[in-house]
């Protein structure tokens, strides 16, 4: 089993060539984590058992384990049990009265000790990567419903701004707290911004309501001397320069073949921002292990020439990705395991 070495990922995030092929995933599904770790989560709050994540990520050849910093999340109301959900499922905030009635959770009130407790389980050279409890735009949409947000943008822009401010300042605080732990090597700001055809709000509204908060998130992460990774799905071509030059993210994660295939993205972005993952989810879900290996090897080769690339899926490893296909990806980075 290869030993984790976070410096490899750090080199990738600094747009350099790592010493060996490096892997990156935003998240692995819990079932796969248990299989890789060889043990089951023993109680409800999986992320309070960082040792299982650490074992699983180490076994699969990652230089880090990813988890949330605490149980902090805004109250989105009751969540459906299905795999799929509508962005219009509900609307907790739809006018000034409902905004004033809403109880805002505060990140300072939560327990982050899992980030310290992880120290005893982290092998030398391995770090944690903290992911967020949904992003700025995602949280606002969860609170308002997408259609309602669109109508409020036209009818009540001041209310919209107040909602974004309440969400944004809490997420900045969350990242500031998480970045202060020295077990944490990097942080992922996860916030889906796009549809297939463009951003969910106009680029002008993204710049007005969403991006200033991301700029602040990146600032607090950088202030702690750590890299900031943006995980954001959808067509972001029109705001890519904002991501790189205005917000100052070190790496971009989440790519889709239909929008911006990772090979093309890497050709355009290498040297400007690190490119992480990108092997299209549909391709990974429906391709054969041989097809997946062929594409991953070609992408790794490309990435090892100029640097700033870590191999992985375009999004994450949910439970509908066949385990053999995930193993095919990591095998390209020299991790051969049998499960």
């Amino acid at each position, binding site marked *: 089993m290869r030993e984790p070495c976070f410096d490899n990922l750090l080199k990738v995030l600094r747009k350099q060539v790592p010493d060996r092929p490096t892997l990156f995933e935003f998240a692995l599904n819990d079932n796969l984590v248990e299989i890789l770790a060889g043990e089951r989560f023993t109680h409800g709050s999986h992320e309070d058992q960082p040792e299982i994540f650490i074992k699983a990520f180490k076994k699969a050849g990652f230089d880090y384990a990813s988890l949330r910093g605490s149980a902090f999340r805004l109250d989105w109301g009751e969540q*459906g049990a*299905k*795999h*799929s*959900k*509508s*962005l*219009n*499922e509900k609307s907790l905030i739809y006018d000034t009265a409902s905004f004033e009635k809403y109880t805002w959770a505060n990140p300072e009130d939560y327990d982050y000790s899992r980030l310290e407790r992880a120290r005893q389980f982290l092998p030398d050279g391995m770090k944690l990567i903290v992911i967020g409890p949904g992003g700025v735009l995602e949280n606002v949409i969860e609170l308002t419903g*997408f*259609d309602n*947000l*669109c*109508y409020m*943008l*036209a009818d009540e822009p001041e209310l919209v701004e107040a909602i974004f401010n309440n969400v944004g300042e809490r997420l900045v605080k969350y990242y500031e707290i998480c970045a202060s732990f020295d077990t944490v090597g990097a942080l992922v700001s996860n916030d889906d911004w796009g*549809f*297939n*055809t*463009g*951003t*969910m*709000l*106009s*680029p002008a*509204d993204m710049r007005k309501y969403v991006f200033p908060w991301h700029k602040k998130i990146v600032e607090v992460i950088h202030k702690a001397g750590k890299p900031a990774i943006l995980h954001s799905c959808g067509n972001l071509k*029109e705001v890519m320069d904002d991501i790189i030059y205005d917000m100052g993210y070190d790496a971009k994660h989440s790519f*889709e073949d*239909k929008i911006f295939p990772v090979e093309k993205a890497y050709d355009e972005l290498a040297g400007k921002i690190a490119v992480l993952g990108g092997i299209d*989810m*549909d391709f990974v*879900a*429906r391709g054969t292990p041989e097809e997946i290996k062929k594409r991953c090897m070609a992408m790794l080769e490309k990435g090892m020439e100029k640097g700033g690339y870590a191999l992985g899926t375009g999004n994450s490893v949910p439970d*509908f990705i066949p385990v053999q296909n995930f193993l095919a990806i990591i095998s390209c980075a020299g991790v051969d395991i049998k499960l």
Partner: protein
Amino acid sequence: MSILNEMSEALQKGKKKEVEELVTKAVGEGFTPKQILEEGLLAGMNIIGTRFKANEVYVPEVLVAARAMNAGIALLKPLLVSSGVQPLGTIILGTVEGDLHDIGKNLVKIMMEGKGINVVDLGVDVPADRFIEAAKEHDAKIICASSLLTTTMMKMKEIVDKARAENLSVKIMVGGAPVNEEFAKSIGADMYKDDAASAADYAVTCFQ
């Protein structure tokens, strides 16, 4: 500027109240309901559709324009019915079984209605049989099925297979994040479109 142009412009800016006032005024000035619908409301929505396709406006602007259009149409409806104005035709629309995503589907509905097409919206998580029953019930010319998930897109094939098994004279158009032309061909669908405005443009050609 003519009152119908004013109406189109107000609609494009999403000014619902202004659209309602202009529709009432246009009726008072003797414009026919068909003229008001086609040269005022649908003309404005058409421009929004074209600008959306060109990434000049985004989903929020489309939704707000559609809200203004629907407010205008609601005022016109009794007049449209009494003067015998018919929609171009009917389509059946829905998100496939197991999938609750609705933003893309709703955009297709807006763009179709903006072309004067009657849309029977079955909602989300719709079983294949329900698409087929609705197509028969409403004598629809097109079934539009949306899917956002790799895990649900194969439900589109069920719709195609059932329609073919019943020899339904209906075209099947598919769309959604993971869907592409190659996939559409592989399941025997008649058409794939990657944005809502193009889907509506194609539907119009089916009714001509």
